């Protein structure tokens, strides 16, 4: 920055302070402050700080001991020293009792005792009678003049740095509680060569600092300069209020799925075992249906269901519902199917959709579902998580279509280039497969799973033979990769600083 720009950028406080700094010698801060009575010390201090940052002045911090009046000393400065008050009270040359004197000279007991000592030291001519009455024998002009102590009081108040801390008199005053020594931090300011350059530039007081409505309306800015700001300096941080990072990611997933022709569906988080499991043809004795896999709720215990559909699903479980299946061959527990659980899989929404009268054929559906599983909470597991699942309903869908759908998801939703489809297992699909993508550092990562719903599932719910591709994406894991998170709990982070600093793209 050249000197001209430097001059234009000076703050009003700097403008008032800088001219008072001498070019040839250094100046103490306290001295400087006296020369700029219109500013407060903190303002001058700030100006010096800024000037130093710009390389215009140099400061040296010094620490030294100086004399200072105590509270008592300051009081005596106003009310005079006790010995002066004592002397003045005796100027009438009459006899005074001790009590009268204390009262007239406003002396407390200890001050009075001290004064008696002082008059002896100073040989002040007083006489004390047997009746303990005091009288000034003679008024001497030398006692009319200010004493050394009185001079000291004035000096200590005005020019404390001039007082010699080793002076015996000063030590006496410390003992009397009138003065003390304090550590004074002082700043010595001197000008730099850049500062000398700046001295040569005329600093106009009349620059515009803050542009105000008044200035704009009156047009008083015309012909004036604006103070130049240091645009390179750091400013305090502020944050944009944003959608939560993981929810933003889920919004993106939603948009992509809509773009791919999928319609969104939803369902309740407190769900019957029927929609959650039984309607999906998962046998009630299946190992994934232990108490340890789902959360059961205390009250209410049972859901209200359409018993006609329950009856059809019961038949499918027991004997196959005329699909050509032999069924699971066990006694379906109708009471149990009404039991309420916290939805453990997003597929519960799919079973509801298939049984709905609003089902479109062909139709493509998705849901972003809150699910719950009985799990220890750690970096990989949460009791509550999110699944993105859905179905594609049409006539004559086959495994090749299923692969096509998975490849589409891998590319469009996960943005994965290299993928792998392998045989998988889900209780409700046959065939089933799993989708993995190659992660540059972590190797093969599971993105999700899919399959074609079993006929024993489809026919009781839809009422006819249609092909249903069911798919699910591990959005929690996808989100973690996308957001660069290693701990799943971070997806639902309550750390406000993290949320404030999170990026949107």
């Amino acid at each position: 920055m050249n000197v001209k720009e430097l001059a234009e950028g000076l703050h009003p406080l700097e403008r008032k302070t800088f001219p008072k700094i001498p070019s040839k010698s250094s100046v103490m801060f306290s001295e400087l402050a006296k020369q700029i009575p219109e500013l407060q010390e903190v303002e001058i201090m700030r100006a010096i700080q800024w000037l130093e940052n710009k390389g215009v002045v140099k400061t040296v911090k010094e620490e030294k001991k100086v004399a200072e009046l105590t509270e008592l000393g300051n009081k005596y400065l106003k009310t005079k020293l006790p010995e002066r008050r004592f002397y003045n009270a005796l100027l009438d040359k009459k006899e005074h009792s001790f009590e009268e004197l204390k009262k007239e000279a406003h002396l407390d007991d200890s001050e009075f005792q001290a004064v008696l000592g002082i008059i002896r030291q100073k040989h002040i001519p007083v006489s004390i009678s047997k009746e303990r009455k005091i009288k000034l024998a003679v008024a001497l002009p030398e006692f009319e003049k200010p004493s050394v102590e009185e001079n000291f009081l004035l000096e200590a108040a005005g020019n404390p740095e001039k007082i010699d801390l080793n002076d015996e008199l000063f030590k006496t005053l410390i003992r009397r509680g009138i003065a003390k020594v304090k550590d004074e931090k002082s700043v010595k300011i001197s000008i730099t060569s850049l500062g000398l350059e700046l001295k040569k530039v005329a600093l106009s007081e009349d620059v515009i600092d803050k542009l105000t409505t008044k200035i704009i309306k009156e047009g008083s800015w015309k012909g004036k300069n604006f103070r130049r700001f240091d645009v390179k300096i750091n400013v305090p941080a502020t944050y944009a209020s944003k959608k939560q990072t993981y929810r933003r990611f889920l919004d993106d997933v939603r948009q992509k799925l809509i773009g791919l022709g999928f319609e969104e569906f939803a369902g309740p988080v407190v769900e019957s075992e029927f929609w959650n499991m039984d309607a999906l043809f998962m046998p009630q004795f299946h190992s994934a249906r232990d108490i340890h896999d789902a959360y059961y709720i205390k009250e209410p215990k049972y859901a209200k269901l359409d018993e006609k559909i329950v009856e059809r699903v019961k038949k499918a479980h027991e004997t196959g519902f005329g699909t050509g299946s032999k069924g699971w061959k066990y006694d379906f527990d109708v009471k149990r199917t009404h039991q309420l659980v916290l939805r453990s899989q997003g597929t519960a929404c799919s079973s509801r959709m298939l049984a709905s009268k609003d089902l479109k054929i062909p139709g493509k559906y998705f849901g972003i579902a809150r699910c719950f599983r009985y799990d220890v909470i750690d970096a990989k597991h949460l009791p509550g998580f999110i699944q993105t699942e859905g179905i594609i309903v049409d006539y004559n869908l086959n495994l090749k279509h299923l692969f096509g759908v998975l490849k589409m998801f891998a590319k469009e939703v996960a943005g994965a280039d290299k993928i792998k489809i392998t045989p998988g297992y889900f209780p409700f699909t046959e065939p089933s497969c799993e989708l993995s993508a190659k992660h540059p550092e972590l190797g093969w990562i599971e993105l999700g799973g899919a399959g074609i719903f079993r006929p024993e599932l489809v026919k009781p719910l839809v009422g006819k033979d249609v092909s249903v591709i069911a798919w699910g994406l591990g959005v929690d894991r996808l989100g973690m990769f996308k957001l660069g998170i290693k701990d799943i709990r971070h997806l639902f982070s309550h750390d406000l600083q993290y949320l404030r600093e999170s990026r949107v793209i």
Partner: protein
Amino acid sequence: MPTISFSHKDLEKMVGRKLPIDKLEKSLEFCKAEIDKVEGDDITISVGDTNQPYLWSVEGVARLLRGVLGIEKGIAKLNIKKADKKIFVDKSVEKIRSYLSAFIARGKKVDDYLLKQMIQLQEKVCEGYGRRRQKVSIGIYSYKKIKFPLYYKAVDPESIEFVPLDFKREMTQAEILETHPKGKEYAWILKDCKKFPIFVDDTGEVLSFPPIINSQKTGKVEIGEEDLLVETTGTDLNAVNLATNIFAYALADRGFTIEALEINYGKNKITTPKMFNEKIKIKTADVDKLLGLKLNDKQITDLLKKARFDFNKGIISVPEYRQDILHWVDVVEDIGIMYDYEKIESSPLTSFTVGNTSEMQRFIDALRELCTGLGYQEVFSTLLTNKEILYNKMNVADLGTIEIKNVMSENYSVLRTWIVPTLMEVLSTNKHIEYPQKIFEQGIVVSRKKEDVIQHEKLALVSAHADANFTEARQVLEAIFKAIGVTGVFENHSHDSFIPGRVAKVLVNGKEVAFVGEMHPKVLSDFGIDVPVVGFELDVDELFRLRK
């Protein structure tokens, strides 16, 4: 998902071919299995299919791999001799644990590794497929210590004493359930039974107390033994027979000779291992319908033989160690897998559908956009919380809560009934962060009204800073109302989370849709928050209905 461990060399020996890890990895895909861990020669894999318990053993995996790799074709043969020995099943076990099947395996020395593999298969089958031994449990015995015929019956829990495995003294069955570690672990299976199952030999010697524990004397197989008795009991005849068959095939693969036993149920007599002789019909058109691969009969036959089925004139024979074929789709999947998913081309979907979301979701997104526009940061939380946060700290009574019966952690024991407490939690954990703190959350709350579960979409918003006041919160709410074209009427309200006289309920078209107020200092101090907090909770469902 079951995991099993085995020796890499052993697997290669059982398969009959070298399988370096990368090749093994690919081969295991045909078994729906993947490698979890490799430590020298020790390999751990997880097997995805919970309906095919035969794959929970190195013998079963190797048998399938021999088909996959073309070393063997079609159904694996099991040669069974008749042992001409009997087991009598007494009527007393009916309704307790009705079924038993068993066989003798002879002529192969049991070493440490083989013993471990047998125990692994036994445990996996009993725990997973056997539903923690309730449905199926398996016992292995030292054949030479047993005197046939054998008897399976139910007796009074105090009537018989024997030394259970790993113990030194005799105990009654009742005592075993109370004191033996396995007894305590599995006592739940017999909790409603007045008599307990027992398995004894001709001399009255106890073999085991199914499904709890074997006897120390006959039920402990030692290394070096050559002849074994394997027995399965359970509540489901098919499952019991399947478990027995899985074990018979595994031991036969190991070189044992399998000898069948006659199980005498009084009138009924069956010989086990029991062959199911299961057949299923399949049409070429069905294969094409599901796979879309246009395979001819020859290809279908070859692929089925790879998967260890036999196929003849449209009829498939299912291996005796499988019971998971309910429908032809189950077989067609195996055809597809053996064809190799890697070689299957994908087809695009051809039907045109219109993508869409619900009106409600659009409404929700609009509200969220307004809140961020008003300077509020969105937060996103799990729905599970606890009553301490929902009510005690918020100074209000229970709103009707859905509580979890099988709680994992008290912190996550109920579904949230309102969202403001969640936001207070957020504020309480962020006291070191610069104020003002302005946050909101939109989401589901769930409550209970008698026998009904009520789920609502809500939105809560709070502002926390030194100068937060009622006006500020009301301004935000009114700004939202204006932007969605409704008018709110503010009325006095009583709500103990807020300062009396500084809380309002908000009506739209006469219906209550929100409350707004200044948080009571008692609530603030319960959450350890030192600055004023104002905020509101909005019923999004109700507002959605009223907005038109």
